[in-house]
């Protein structure tokens, strides 16, 4: 029995160890509003260059903290430029990076929701006033830029205080969108890029919130100190017209100059 167990363990170990010996591919961190657009760009990047990229999606604030603590990310696509500047100040990045997109927010409501999406959230305001509103999902404003933009828009419309008892916080904007799309919340204020992605488009409706209601979501990317040549190549690739076109298709506004 000992020998069989040992053999089994050895086989398992060999099988799993072999896999990790494959060619190293750059590790990058990306804001979760890029979930679908970046996947498409990375597929294109792989077929053009043969380089496979390992990507982790999450909230920009968390990634900034992890990079500070020594996480091995080579390229960081933040949804907000302040996190990039903070890292640059601490000499953890090569430079101050480059703006790659400007994001927008929408009110997304799942199919069957009693809430109707409109740009100035008038229906939501009425439902809050008469006490019939259900849960509204946003990303955590403390560390997720899209959550902060949602909070600012709600402030601008004078709804933030009234919404407090109804708000559910996602760890990042993708989780907030998931809360809404699954029908577990009446709706969510999420990234436009997620609302028009095929995975969500058919699950509900959305209304684009005017960008005058919140500070611009200026998305900046930066190479970290440990960036490999492959990561640099991807950084350049993301600034080509082909990549810009994909980002535009997912509702991102191209940054000026």
């Amino acid at each position, binding site marked *: 029995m000992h020998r069989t167990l040992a053999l089994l*363990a050895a086989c398992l170990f060999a099988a799993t160890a072999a896999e990790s010996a494959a060619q190293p591919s750059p590790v990058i961190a990306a804001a979760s509003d890029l979930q679908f657009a970046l996947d498409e760009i990375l597929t294109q990047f792989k077929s053009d260059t043969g380089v496979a990229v390992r990507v982790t999606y999450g909230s920009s604030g968390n990634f900034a903290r992890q990079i500070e603590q020594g996480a091995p990310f080579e390229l960081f696509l933040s949804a907000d430029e302040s996190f990039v500047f903070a890292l640059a100040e601490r000499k953890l990045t090569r430079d101050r990076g480059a703006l790659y997109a400007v994001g927008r927010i929408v009110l997304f409501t799942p199919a069957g929701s009693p809430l109707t999406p409109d740009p100035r959230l008038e229906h939501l305001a009425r439902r809050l006033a008469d006490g019939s509103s259900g849960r509204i999902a946003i990303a955590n404003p403390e560390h997720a830029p899209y959550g902060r933009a949602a909070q600012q828009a709600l402030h601008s419309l004078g709804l933030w205080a009234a919404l407090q008892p109804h708000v559910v916080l996602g760890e990042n904007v993708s989780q907030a969108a998931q809360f809404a799309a699954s029908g577990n919340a009446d709706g969510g204020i999420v990234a436009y890029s997620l609302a028009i992605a095929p995975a969500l488009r058919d699950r509900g409706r959305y209304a684009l919130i005017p960008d005058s209601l919140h500070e611009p979501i200026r998305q900046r990317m930066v190479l970290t100190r440990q960036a490999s040549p492959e990561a640099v190549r991807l950084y350049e690739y993301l600034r080509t017209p082909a990549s810009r076109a994909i980002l535009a298709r997912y509702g991102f506004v191209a940054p000026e100059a």
Partner: protein
Amino acid sequence: MDWTALGLSLRLGVLTVALLLPVAFLLARWLAYGRFRGRGFVEALVALPLILPPTVVGFYLLHAFGRGSPIGAAFEGLLGHPLVFSFEGLVLASVLVNLPFAVQPMQNALAAIPTSVRDAARCCGLSPLAAIRRIELPLALPGIATGAVLTFAHTLGEFGVVLMVGGSIPGETRTIAIAIYDRVQAFDEPAAATMALVLLVMAVAALGISNTLARRAARRD
């Protein structure tokens, strides 16, 4: 289905069991047979990961292994990269978190060996090492196996601690439990469902194995 994540979890499970079992056996033996002041305190310390929220464990590990700490700095000098957000860091965290799962079944099995049997071994002239090898190990085998199975299964399922010290890097720290979380957020329900089913089947199998071993041990008494 994220095969890399499953492979990583299996590798983490195997390594955790391999590293933890010898240490846990010695600790279990000390707790089962040792007569010393403060044993209750050591037992409580071993059991701590069972009741502490994973985020608390993760928080302390992040500080204990982090860049600013002596352990973190020593490892960074040794490995060339920080311990947090690396596979090695996960292994270390996993060994610590699984301490009670390995120690407690072994301690119970060792304590259940009648004192008369151990006295007889000593009277017959067996050295302490020989007594461990020929008396204690065989008699405590079901407990050891239960500890190994529970440790392995718990490693596959660990989420909170891994989320805090791992950072979900594919092929490095994205375990299957984290991959499920990521897939749900990516609206990839089918992949999440498949992986959840894989973990469910493995957990049921682990419990089945450990129950069978426990029954077999009970029958022998």
